[in-house]
């Protein structure tokens, strides 16, 4: 047995049951530890990944649900936009412990990668799927603003 998946653009096979949560296959079978377990109930967003470019909670998805889809984890986000986001996080010290940050990064990458720069409400909706307990929320919002300015100036296409 084995389940075929496409993760970060690469076909892989994992030797676990199809009912296994996606997050466990990513972390324990594929060693992609950037996806974090937080609550197991779609409340905190620490486990966010992209499935066919849409943000999804990897703690409640089963492998069988995604075997025909493209799964992207934070390790697979390496484009210009990812660099803009990383620079913005560093410039604003947007995080403290950083545990929530991987999932937030994935959601923001999706939100900012749309062809039209997102409106405030769209960013708010994207971040509405996430919790931060360190109180880095305000700094993260400043980092989003900074990244958006760069995106609007076309920097991520460089």
């Amino acid at each position, binding site marked *: 047995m084995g389940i075929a998946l496409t993760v970060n653009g690469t076909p892989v096979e994992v030797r676990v049951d199809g009912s296994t949560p996606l997050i466990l296959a990513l972390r324990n079978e594929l060693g992609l*530890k*950037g996806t974090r377990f937080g*609550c197991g109930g779609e*409340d905190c967003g620490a486990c966010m990944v992209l499935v066919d470019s849409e943000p999804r909670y990897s703690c409640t998805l089963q492998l069988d649900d995604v075997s025909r889809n493209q799964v992207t984890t934070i390790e697979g986000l390496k484009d210009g936009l990812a660099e803009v986001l990383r620079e913005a996080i*560093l410039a604003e010290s947007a995080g403290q412990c*950083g*545990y929530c940050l991987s999932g937030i990064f994935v959601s923001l990458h999706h939100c900012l990668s749309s062809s039209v720069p997102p409106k405030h409400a769209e960013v708010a909706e994207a971040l509405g799927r996430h919790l931060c*307990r360190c*109180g880095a929320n305000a700094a993260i*919002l400043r980092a989003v603003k900074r990244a958006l300015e760069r995106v609007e100036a076309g920097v991520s296409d460089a």
Partner: protein
Amino acid sequence: MPEPGSSSGWNAPLTDRFDLSNPGLVVLKTGKVELGQGILLALRQIAAEELDLSVDAIVTVSGDTSASPFEGGTVGSVSVETSGHEVRNAAAVLRWELFDAAARRLGVPISEITAEGGEFFVAGSRSNETLWTLAAKIDFLRPPGRSAVPKSPNLYKTVGANVPQTQLLERLGGGAFIHDLSFDGMLHGRVLRKPHPDARLESVDTDVIRAPGVVQVVREHDFIGVVAESEQTLATAMARLERRCRWSGIPNDSPQTPLDILANADVTERVLRADQGSSGPNPEEDGQTLSAVYSKPLIGHGSIGPSCGVAIVSDSAVEVWSHSQNVFALRDQIARVLGRAAQDVIVRHRLGAGCYGHNGADDAAMDAALLARAVAGRPVRVQWTRKDELTCEPLGSPMRIAVQARIRDGRIAEWKLTTRSGTHMQRPGWGDQVNLLGPAAASAKFATTVQMDLPDHNGGSKNAVALYDFPQHVAYEFAADLPFRLSALRSLGAFGNVFAIESFMDELAALAGCDPVEFRLRHLADPRARRVVSRVAEISDYAKPCEAGFGRGLGFARFKNTGSYCAVVALVSVDETVEVQKLWAAVDAGLVINPAGLISQVEGGMLQAASWVLKESVPTDGTRLIAESWKDYPILTFAETPETNVEIIADPDFPSTGVGEVSLGPTAGAIANAGASAFGMRIRELPLTRERLMKAALEAE
């Protein structure tokens, strides 16, 4: 070999602090641990400054009982204050020893030698000597026998600089957290938590749990756990186990809230301060009197990452990885419970999610050790569920604060505050008890039987004395028998006490017909205190009138009355619910090591306090904790996050003081005062929920 974990001090051998055996790198050993507060970067900046190195050249070994100096816990916002001071002094000694060695090797007076980036120069010309060639000539095992004067702060280049927090980016990928540890042959384990501290495990059918991949079912009295080959197998086994356990001794439902229980509890009273003429308003005397009672509920730490621990137990040694705040205390309790000598147990700190005090970190490590004992030699990883986090971690005690005062001639002439609380301290080893869930379930001899708070002016009485200048009578009513698991939560009693003091200051200002800022300054001689209050009023346009439905409020405290100063202003709107629109703070923490790191800590405290003030209360049914998910214990969301603005009043003439807990009490006062101003009525019970506002509005009609 010096004894690992020996106490550091001015005469400690250099090897206790430093290892220079790898050219190009200075290993700084510290007992303090990274909790997301940025302490390791701050300590690296301090060491880099003294040694004229770049911060990148300093790496840390942190919280390893086999290699780090014993520095107690990473608690109480004192790491920069105490450990930073020690690292600076130790680095100054190392610097002196290196310069001394350089002078002898190069045959020139010390005064002609300079160092930069690890290289040594004589009269401006580079020599062949480096930090590392010279270090090889120094006996790191010998007590230096002298202290050395650290650099003068006016020469600082690295200390005080915003060295970027690159560790944040490193954490974005995998591998940074304890949750990411992986060992060959690692098993996954979990303990089924008791549904109530008094519950007893009557019977359990363990046969149904046995399945391929289930390695062990471990039971000892009320302790029952499972070890499995995979997390998925473990989850299935635990779900089955939960259905097959029969518990007794769970108390019946009760409508009593934790605050009801606190109000009716037996207490012992201690008078913390009794100034002359402060014993409390006597209605016979002149002036105006006022009294009020404030409260805060049970609050949780609520780490976003669940508690996690990994352990390997073999005949000869016990190795544990934990995100504990105090690896040494945890090591001692693991040794005690497993019946091992302390030197046979090694605990190594690994980064967890932010903890904000004593959460389930130590429990998870102990769980791992107890389960690993049953599968000798194999690593066992334990990760709690969200429900375990919400119902089993230690919590911040409910508090009830009663204040009365008399105003005479526009000043506070008498002030009496009585604060009532359960303990704020139940860390591993405190009161010579283990204080961990696993051992308590396994054996009555490891159960916590006595609750004891920290000494006066800490724990529940932290900041119970106001910094203001008026005659005070302050008492602490300690409830030692609260039926909840209570321990240290960020700022301990200071949050509740400052919330009450700052709320009451506004109530008294109104009674005196005085502006709240002016009223505070009237009772505040300390120039550093006056400066933060005045400055935050300035940057927030405090005096500017608000539109209807909006209000500004101020809160101030000096943390523990000896630490950093912080004043906060909140701008809120009230329309059925309280919404915080903006928060400003002015902070004086003496000498600042990393301004961006300081702002992060202060701002984080402000937003966490906003979450506590607006939303948080651990749901209970009598003495049972009943939250199942974040839905039952909501915290501040991004949509509810106000803009923040923190201004540092840097004064290098004063020694560094911590900032991790400084802003929570002042923020509570600021939001409560702004809310009262916007709403026209004051809610004295936290959190300031829509239900409480509606109830107050109805009662007023």
